[in-house]
């Protein structure tokens, strides 16, 4: 349960965010979750500020590929163990040459999140010297696989041979479900 003092603390944090950092927008997702969109140059100061205010746990650092806008959205989710409130801090970087800065000095665990984001989206984090080391995939030699312009089916077809079937079971299943018209033999 959230106490009223914590709520006041929250209001204060939100208003000082707007005062201290220019261009930062905050949005209430629900009483326990707030989204904060920051310009890239303000992100790390905002994260440092929030860590000091009790949002000390970096739950995850991840990325979203907005291919139409040609942007990568970096998302830092911070959690406050005292109040149970979550802040989702995000920022946008250019998709063509995605470079951002490490937060390893704030949260040492970020090292692995940054390696993960580099491996799956290709975003580089300056200051993290291990950022380009492979983490999960082994011997990967294609586009970072979670980018929207990567085609997993095509990759799978090229690398991992399929079992060959006499009949097209998927097509028949579509007929049975009524998605397409046709005859089933046998």
């Amino acid at each position, binding site marked *: 349960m959230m106490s009223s003092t914590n709520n006041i603390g929250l209001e204060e944090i939100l208003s000082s965010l707007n005062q201290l950092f220019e261009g930062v927008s905050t949005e209430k997702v629900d009483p326990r979750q707030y989204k904060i969109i920051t310009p890239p140059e303000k992100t790390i100061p905002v994260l440092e500020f929030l860590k000091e205010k009790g949002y000390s746990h970096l739950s995850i650092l991840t990325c979203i590929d907005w291919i139409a806008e040609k942007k990568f959205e970096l998302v830092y989710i911070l959690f406050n163990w005292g109040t149970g409130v979550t802040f989702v801090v995000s920022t946008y970087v250019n998709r063509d040459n995605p470079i951002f800065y490490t937060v390893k000095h704030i949260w040492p665990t970020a090292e692995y999140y940054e390696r993960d984001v580099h491996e799956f989206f290709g975003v580089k984090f300056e200051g993290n010297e291990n950022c380009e080391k492979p983490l*999960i995939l082994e011997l990967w030699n294609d586009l970072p696989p979670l980018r929207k312009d990567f085609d997993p089916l095509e*990759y799978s077809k090229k690398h*991992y041979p399929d079992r060959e079937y006499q009949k097209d079971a998927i097509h028949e299943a579509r007929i049975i479900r009524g998605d397409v018209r046709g005859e089933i033999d046998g």
Partner: protein
Amino acid sequence: MSNRGNVKIDERTVWEKIADQLRSRSMWMLHYCTGCGAVELPPSMTSRFDLERFGIGPMATPRQADIFLITGYLSVKTLRRVIYTYEKMPDPKYVIGFGSCTINGGIYYDSYATINRLDYYIPVDLYIAGCMPRPEAIFEAFTKLMEMIRKGEANGWKRYKENYEWYKQNQLRSLGEVIIHDEFHE
């Protein structure tokens, strides 16, 4: 897979036939828990279904195991470990592919990370269809496997030796390199 030469794969000496009778009644199972299917094994092994009445028990190391159970989807990363483990097991060894993912990729047919057909890389004696198979299906598979061993039909380990080149070539095609490199063990 045709260069079998003159040696018939299902030819056995009298002693081998006797040994197979005994083997089929006492097997250790290495359950390499790759995918979701592994969750059906604890109920199979414990008192409700009681796997031991078939003379089958879990084994912790590949060096002492007879059955290799692949319980679901296999990422290429895991496949490297699977091949390594399979080659460590002493003859005779039997492989069971468990669940649709091992048969044709299942719902992960279009994944960039998982293979689509287990028997392309290592010989599989028996598949259990389903997503995921229930303990009843597992028991049916085990009794079938015991029968196959008695009849001398479960000879995947012989096929692996005879078609070693073919299997190796397939492994290399999908994996690039079968040897495992990782930062925690080097």
